[in-house]
């Protein structure tokens, strides 16, 4: 029973790290209908931004988080202007390849400028485990969970209750009709991408603290998992993405705990194929036809 509870908790934590990346991915996917392959690398840039801030400027958690959010958001803004906007309306595969190119540039740029190896993340929060009786948890794990919940709350609030958010949903559903109603589609896209990037930056710090290190090529693994989460969940409800990410994390943790860890990665793909076979638009459906 102890194993079950511990793995459940681990699963929730891992799931929340997936969720935290997937939400930013989902925001862009839903609004712009494109896969932004540079998103995980924006996440990575945020992580290094936070790392540099923690090393050279300040060790305060909030300052570090702000630094990474800013650096990630800046990259996201530039990406939207230079790459996403010109390619809007064209085949999604083009955007995928272009953002992949940008991702390669970012990864290798950071690897060349800083280090291509794993870099230790300064311990802004202590990683001592806290014993809660049957299970043990550490502060960074709790921070991770809180960050992902807050990100979800921010995105939900933004999309449901703010005027820009409603405009975003309109653009997601029918960009042409939204434009006819006077919505500035370019501005909405810009805000969406920048918001997604900033959230990714915050998430990056919490993940970096969790694992204690940062790596220029970390985008690959997380990118694929986050990608799978949005595909399984469909692009209609952001909350769905969060749910799927948590479920995936829990599933992986349970299988690792009870069976073996070797087939852990295959599970995600198996689940993806199974879900897409039955519901090609994702579990919760999508906006588009």
């Amino acid at each position, binding site marked *: 029973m102890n194993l079950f509870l511990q793995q459940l908790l681990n699963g929730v934590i891992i799931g929340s790290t997936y969720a935290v990346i997937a939400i930013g991915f989902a925001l862009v996917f839903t609004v712009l209908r494109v896969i932004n392959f540079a998103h995980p690398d924006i996440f990575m840039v945020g992580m290094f931004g936070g790392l540099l801030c923690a090393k050279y400027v300040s060790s305060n958690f909030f300052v570090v988080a702000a630094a990474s959010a800013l650096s990630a958001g800046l990259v996201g803004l530039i990406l939207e202007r230079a790459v996403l906007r010109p390619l809007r309306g064209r085949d999604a*595969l083009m955007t995928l390849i272009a953002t992949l190119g940008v991702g390669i540039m970012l990864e*290798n740029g950071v690897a060349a400028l800083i280090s291509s190896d794993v870099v230790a993340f300064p311990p802004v929060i202590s990683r001592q485990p806290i014993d809660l009786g049957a299970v043990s948890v550490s502060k960074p794990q709790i921070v991770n969970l809180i960050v992902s919940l807050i990100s979800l709350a921010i995105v939900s609030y933004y999309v449901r209750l703010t005027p820009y958010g409603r405009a975003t949903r309109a653009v997601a559903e029918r960009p042409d009709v939204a434009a006819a109603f006077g919505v500035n589609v370019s501005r909405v896209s810009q805000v969406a991408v920048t918001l997604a990037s900033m959230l990714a930056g915050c998430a990056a710090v919490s993940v970096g603290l969790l694992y204690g290190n940062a790596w220029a090529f970390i985008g690959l693994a997380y990118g*694929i998992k986050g990608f799978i989460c949005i595909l399984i969940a469909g692009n209609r409800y952001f909350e769905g993405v969060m749910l799927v990410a948590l479920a995936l994390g829990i599933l992986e943790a349970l299988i690792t705990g009870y069976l073996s860890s070797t087939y852990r990665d295959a599970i995600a793909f198996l689940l*993806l194929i199974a879900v897409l076979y039955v519901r090609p638009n994702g579990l919760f459906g999508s906006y588009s036809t």
Partner: protein
Amino acid sequence: MFGQWESLVIFTLLNVMLTVGVYVTAMSGQLSLATAAIAGLGGYAAAILTRNFGWPFVPAILMGAVVGAFVGAFIAAVTLRMRDFILKLTTLAFGEMIAVVAFNIDYIGGANSFTGIPAYTGFWNCLIGVLIATYLAWRFDGSRLGFASRAVRDDVVAAAATGISVLQVRVVTFALGAAICGAAGALQAHYMLIVSPQELGFFVSLNFIIFLLFGGMHVLWGAMLGATVLTILPELMRFTTEYRHVLFGLIITVVVLFRPQGLIPRIPTGVSGRFSRAGKTARQQAQ
């Protein structure tokens, strides 16, 4: 014969062969992201046959092609009802799954890769492979099946309405492209003398998609040109050392932004337009 450039030449030939395979599959609108996995499976199959069972080289390559064809046909059948985008993603998922499974099966070496493969591949084998693949693709292009697959690519519903069996077209084109990939994988296995599960992943497959898009997705020569240029370019850029990959990413991004139809577009303009019938028609119509 080529001295230090030998491995570059062989890799270029192999990449061209693989990209031609992707081109054939893409002709029916199924852009496959499982290419590396299929090639890897072909490589494993052929290597197992030559190393463990002592098969001669050419039948082993053919078996690699057969394995590729079966896997390709299976994927095509599963993804039959899927739309454009989801289709690509499912092929991606298949590819990754195959990679993970290959990682864990000890008979083929698991994470330690499959080694001890006899070194059969040389320049001439690869050249012949490329020539055969190109010939197949070229004949396929001009055949009824080729036209049918282009119809399926452009508009599935309309194609079905004219009596084309979408199932048949999709499965056969995928199998054909996958067979070429499997054979190329077999050749590669006997050159590298190793087949490792890392090579089966999605990023390797994406490489070939990039070659195809860069060179021009709609024309066979585009596939070959794209593969050649993008294989040779990083080698020529060696002098830029660590920023090499950054430059590579930049080139990809810039090409997609400014010339999304690839180097050789569907309506051939420029040099390639002078030598093809499609180009001549286009110029006549423009007058």
